[in-house]
């Protein structure tokens, strides 16, 4: 177990370091930093800005000092937002994105697994067919199209939800639903496939033979096996939720990390961009590790070492 964690940690450090190095040199290679090079601004101001962004020191020194502070999770001041450091922006945006992501994931899991189990148990019934069709729609349609249509229908035509903003509970519901919908679809399909496989296996037949009701069989025995593909899907699902939140936060004007990242991209705020890319990488790594760990816990046949 320890070896697993250490190996994972090692890979994460290597990956993050590569991303950092590539981004750092790209950033420094690009002109147009935070201050105007030829503009007639007071020399003292120019000197202060250079000192603030540590641009007055030689390149290799900048690289290592920035690397050192990055390791300590201090990403430095933002290029464009004068009053803020990158950390402050991330600290403000993270809880918003996290709540959105958690709601979306919970929704996706609940709806997806329920639909999948019902579809598997009542195979080829109208439930099955309609659920699977909805799942396909959820998967194929891009999430911003889904969200746009949802906004038109549920915010403007039948005003059930507020259009945007953050601060009240009812403002989280629609974005979370739209974000989680494609994943609900995937999870429904995966659960259905997994359950079908499990339901035809011997030990389930034994359970039925013993006289257990459908509900007992499903809940107590089949679920565990059927859950496996879902658990391993959680890794890519997190990645998907992180990317999906970029558009959804835009549509619903949520001040989360995704919003800030896109604005950083549009305003060419390189330090903020880079800091967020690193955070996202670390997040993904952590999530994938947790997923692999859970997978090995749930399925005794899987050896943790293989996952590393």
């Amino acid at each position, binding site marked *: 177990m320890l070896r697993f964690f250490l190996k994972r940690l090692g890979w994460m450090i290597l990956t993050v370091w590569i991303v950092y190095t590539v981004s750092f040199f790209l950033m420094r290679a690009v002109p*147009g930093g935070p*201050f*105007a090079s030829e*503009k*007639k*601004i*007071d*020399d*003292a*101001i*120019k*000197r*202060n800005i250079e*000192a*603030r962004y540590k641009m007055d020191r030689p390149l290799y020194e900048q690289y290592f000092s920035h690397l050192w502070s990055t390791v300590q999770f201090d990403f430095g001041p933002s290029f*464009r*937002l*004068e*009053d*803020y450091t990158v950390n402050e*922006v991330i600290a*403000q*945006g993270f*809880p*918003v994105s*996290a*709540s*959105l992501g*958690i*709601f979306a994931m*919970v929704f996706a*899991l609940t709806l997806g697994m329920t639909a999948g189990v019902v579809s598997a148990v009542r195979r080829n019934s109208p439930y099955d067919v309609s659920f699977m069709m909805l799942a396909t729609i959820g998967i194929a349609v891009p999430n911003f199209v889904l969200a746009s249509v949802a906004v038109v229908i549920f*915010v*403007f035509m039948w*005003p059930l939800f*507020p*259009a*945007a*903003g*953050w*601060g*009240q*509970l009812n*403002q*989280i519901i629609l974005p979370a639903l739209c974000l989680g919908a494609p994943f609900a679809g995937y999870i429904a399909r995966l659960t259905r496939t997994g359950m079908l496989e499990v339901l035809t296996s011997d030990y389930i037949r034994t359970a039925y033979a013993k006289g257990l009701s459908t509900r007992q069989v499903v809940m107590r025995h089949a679920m*565990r096996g059927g*859950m496996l593909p879902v658990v391993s899907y959680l890794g890519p699902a997190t990645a998907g939720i992180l990317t999906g939140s970029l558009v959804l936060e835009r549509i619903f*004007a949520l*001040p989360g990390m995704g*919003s*800030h990242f896109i*604005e950083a991209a*549009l*305003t060419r*705020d390189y330090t903020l961009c880079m800091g967020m890319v690193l955070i996202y990488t670390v997040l993904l790594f952590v999530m994938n590790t947790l997923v692999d760990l*859970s997978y090995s*816990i*749930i399925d*005794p046949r899987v050896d943790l070492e293989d996952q590393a």
Partner: protein
Amino acid sequence: MPHGFRKVFPYIALLVLVAAMVWAVSFGTLPRADFAFNNGDEIKTVDPAKATGSPEGRVINGLFEGLLRQTPLDQESDENGQVPLQPETNGVAERYTVSDDGLVYTFHIREAAVWSNGDKVTADDFAWSWRRMLHPETGSQYAYQLHYVSGAMQYNLGTLQVGDQVEVELDDRRDPQQLFPRGTVLKGLLVSRDEDNENFTIDIKPLRDGKVDWQAAGSEQSFTKLTAKQPGSGTKCHHVLADFGSTVGITVEDAATLVVRLENRTPYFPDLVAFYPLYPVNRRCVEEHGTPNWTKPGNIVGNGPFVLQFRRIRDRVRMVKNPKYWNADIVQLDVVDAMAVKSQTTSLNMYMNGQLDWTTTVPNPIIPELRKRDDFITAPMLTTYFYRINVELPGLDKVLVRRALNMAVDKQEIVEKVTKAGQLPARSYVPPGLPGFESALCGEFNPEKARKLLVEAGHAGGRGLPKIEILYNTSESHRDIAQVIQQHWKKHLGIDVVLRNLEWATYLDTIHKTDYAVARAGWIGDYADANTFLDMFITDGTNNQTNWSNKKYDGLIEAAKSETDVAARLSLLHQAERILMDEQPIIPIYFYRSINMVHPRIEGFSANIQDVHPLHLLRIRPAER
């Protein structure tokens, strides 16, 4: 792995999930504010010395207060639906007097004015804040508003003559990057300086009883600025500037009396004092925390009707009532949110949903519908919507090209079919309605002539011109106008133009660095005189931002400042505008009408020519609280 653990794991996972949900819910809720309005975009800063926009102004007017306050008079609106706006003694000063020659203003600060940390507001606060604003290292874009004070311009621009009384700041600051608290300041007479203004020889005068004795014999020392390109031999110093105390006409007579001496009679000086760049900041706070950290919610000290509770980027600025405010009795709102919603449609929707009580923007296409409503308040505004042109770029540096660009824009079509709120197309920069002033006009819409001008300039069909990019701050309205103008220039001149939008703060910075080709802009008159529109375009004016320079123009503006005859003065300004319109570093597009939608339950909201709506004067109707 112990078998028990494996069995229990799904339940642990479930528990974790539920805990995550609870945590998520707790982050998602915020207590509601009494009053929420849309400020248009994320503000750049709350530091009065560093802000230039009206979104910042609304917040700063809530957190700070100047000697005077621009107050909409409490009377019936006129036929335009407007009430007059006056710089009243509703601010920190309880009264002020003006000398007969109009050069000396004496402000008397009220007893009850205190900062939010309990300190009294003193005349020294203003002297210190204005000095901070004038100091070149602060980089205040509005510093020129104080140039009317005698000696202030010299201090601000760092102009020195041999023989001047100067101050030298040594390199022993507590934090080298923070202007305050300053390092040791020595004073003396300037003996010589090199042409780059980097090395100085100064006859340093000694101190006597804590004050500088200018008469005593001093010692000559040489100084070199830290930012000098060539290493010099003198003692390292940060700045050598004109001595503030003896040069600038700001005097602290006693703790409650501030005396200001102007260069020339300036009838609109009270308007400037009531305008937010001249608001004070708390010295202790700034020196302790430094810029920009002093503006953070935990640190900030203000003297306004509200205090800053928190700032969430791209979400809102929340202000709460300041119990220590001298006029706290009339402030009815407890919690005010300034939301940063960029999208006009979202803003309107939030207003309709009751999430906002006041919105400052609405989507243009449905304005004709909205006009029929009672809560739609519109009035003429002393503001011009225009496009700046960076006259240093090749191609755009030719006057004929700029004139061609101006004449290819169909402004009538824009105000009739895009903005739709009754705005007026603009052929001058100064809006109409200023008494006695006659505007100079630029070319009118004439595509044929525009094409000819382009051919004359050698860029027939747009060939040879660089790729022009129109920069605007994110808003559907600006986008639509930019797209229409893009099409106009394509259709009439054959020029290909691309569009770029940035959020407000970055857009301001980009324009300040003149890192653009053509940029959208809007300018609200800071006082009811043509000068507020024209003095920004002098050479190297901090709000010029077009790289345009014309010595004759500078001369006219300068002459107008000291001209006492009203008619002559307005004539000088007219000539200046004539030059501006001829050389066309800007393309005026239309004159604004203020557009606000305010919930009927809000009282105390009235239209005025600057579209200023002090938050502390707004009340919620008792029945609907």
